[in-house]
């Protein structure tokens, strides 16, 4: 396999993206931004799968990525509907203000 860029770089990039996503989920307070950070984590996963798949010349990882993308799309549909419901009640999507029950 003749790859221009070493596998380690792809993995490092994916790990960095994943950590940015985790940091976003933990520090941001807007439900939509948290949601975007989660999508970033999922895309870091996809990048990891693709990098391994290419370096191992095994297509299973690419198939997995398609499934992750399909599931992420379903999650977006449900998640945005839930966020809209919250907005109707509260007029805000700040998760610190969504606190009828203690976290």
């Amino acid at each position, binding site marked *: 396999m003749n790859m221009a860029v070493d596998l380690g770089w792809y*993995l490092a990039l994916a790990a960095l993206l*994943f950590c940015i*996503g*985790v940091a976003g*989920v933990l520090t941001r307070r807007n*439900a939509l931004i*948290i*949601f975007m950070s*989660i999508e970033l*984590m*999922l895309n*870091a*996963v996809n990048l*990891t*799968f693709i*990098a*391994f*798949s290419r370096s*191992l010349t*095994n297509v*299973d*990882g690419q*198939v*997995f990525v398609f*499934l*992750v993308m399909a*599931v992420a799309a*379903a*999650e977006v549909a*449900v*998640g945005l*509907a*839930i*966020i809209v*419901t*919250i907005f*109707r*009640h*509260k007029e805000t999507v700040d*998760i610190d203000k*969504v*606190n*009828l*029950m*203690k*976290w």
Partner: protein
Amino acid sequence: MTFNPSDILTIVPEIAVVALAMLVILTELLITRRETVLQLMTVAGLLVVMALAVLTFDKAGGAFNGMTAGDGLSTFMKALLAGIALLAVLMSRDYLTPPTDAGGEGRGVRHGEYYGMLLIATCGMMILVSATDLVTVFLGIETTSIALYVLAGIRSERARSGEAALKYFLLGAFATGFLLYGMALLYGATGGKTNLTEIGRAITDLGPDRPVYLYMGAGLVMIGLMFKVAAVPFHFWAPDVYQGSPTPVTAFMSAGPKAAALTALIRVFAGALPDLSAAWGPALWVVAALTMTLGNIVAISQKDIKRMLAYSSIAHAGYLLVGALAAANTGTYNSATAGIMFYLTAYYLMNIGAFTIAILVSRARENGDYQIDDYKGMAALHPWTSAAMALFMISLAGIPPTAGFFGKLYVFSAAVKAGYISLVVIAVLNSALSVFYYLRIVVYMYMQPEVKPARVRMAPAMALVIVICALGILKFGLLPGDLMRWADRSASMTVKPSPRAAVALNDHDQ
């Protein structure tokens, strides 16, 4: 890689559940919106699914090139999951459309959609219990979770329901990210394997020089599964989500996904990662000990019965993890798995029974609250309902002669045989602690003066749920042999996870 038509047989229950979901949704859309018709249809369909799950069992082997297993474990769990869905559907009677004198609130909810979502979640759990590949584990978890996010928020006119859905969704999707990253690293570390058994073999072939990201992958997968089981320290979503969700959904959520995720946990750790048990064994030990201790201690101080049952369900997840650790880590794969199956059956009956009575009691109150104080003096006015509630509490506490006692007995004795004596001591001490808050409700019902008289109005379907749960608990508490034999036989027909665990099966006592 060939397609074998007989493989379809192993997923007949899943196909039937999805077909039923479509049928219910279309019936509501095209024919009738009456709750009784839709509910009877769903119940009848689930009975058929239960029968199919048992009847289509043919071989203890894999199907679809190792993607799923049609073995004893998955057959037992599929029948159990159909049973959980069945009682959850029955106990939802009148919940979505309270009688007109309660203001006709919740008119916007369509029953067909609600049952349909419940069935799709059931299908996802069925996929998860038979999953023997990372792909099917992931798809099973996500099919379950996405349907449950919708169910948690299905009473969108209530702020709490929406809040529960948001918290469940954000934290659930966050955990999915960890699970998937773990799967990606496992895939890479094992040279492109996704099948659990092949991963196990690849790790053995790696020998001592394992890449660091193999351990990271295993750890991340473990975090993802721990989240779904609601184990400490990944439990923080559970109390809020359980309290805010519609109560029938809470009952369903606390029994079904927990059962499915535990099964997946056993399959992943016993099947794919036996060689790493030195790393995850102690971690799982600590998680199990923390889960039951924290669940029980926090449950004591709760004033809301749904929240109390939520923490109690965290504690029960801890007891089950003791069994899962024994099942995954050692030679007692067989008897510990059977113990878990028995425990899950018992837990489902007592938990759904307790939640059903909680619905009835809260309905009798004007504000619809779930305060534990509402149970004071209930026995004088409702002797039968109180007796059933007392039975459920005694069973949850694990006192004989109830199914809850034998569930704990089987799980803990399997764990002792596997050598986890100090962990079982912690578990037994925790059971003693839990008696305090379970029996408090019994004391309130029988030995306290009544606060305010409340008429509990009971639909026949709700009464049926309580009777089934009570009879089941007594049956399995007095004569546990039948269920235990079935569980034992199912466990012994489980796909051998890996060469190492298969050898270990031989020193099982039966």
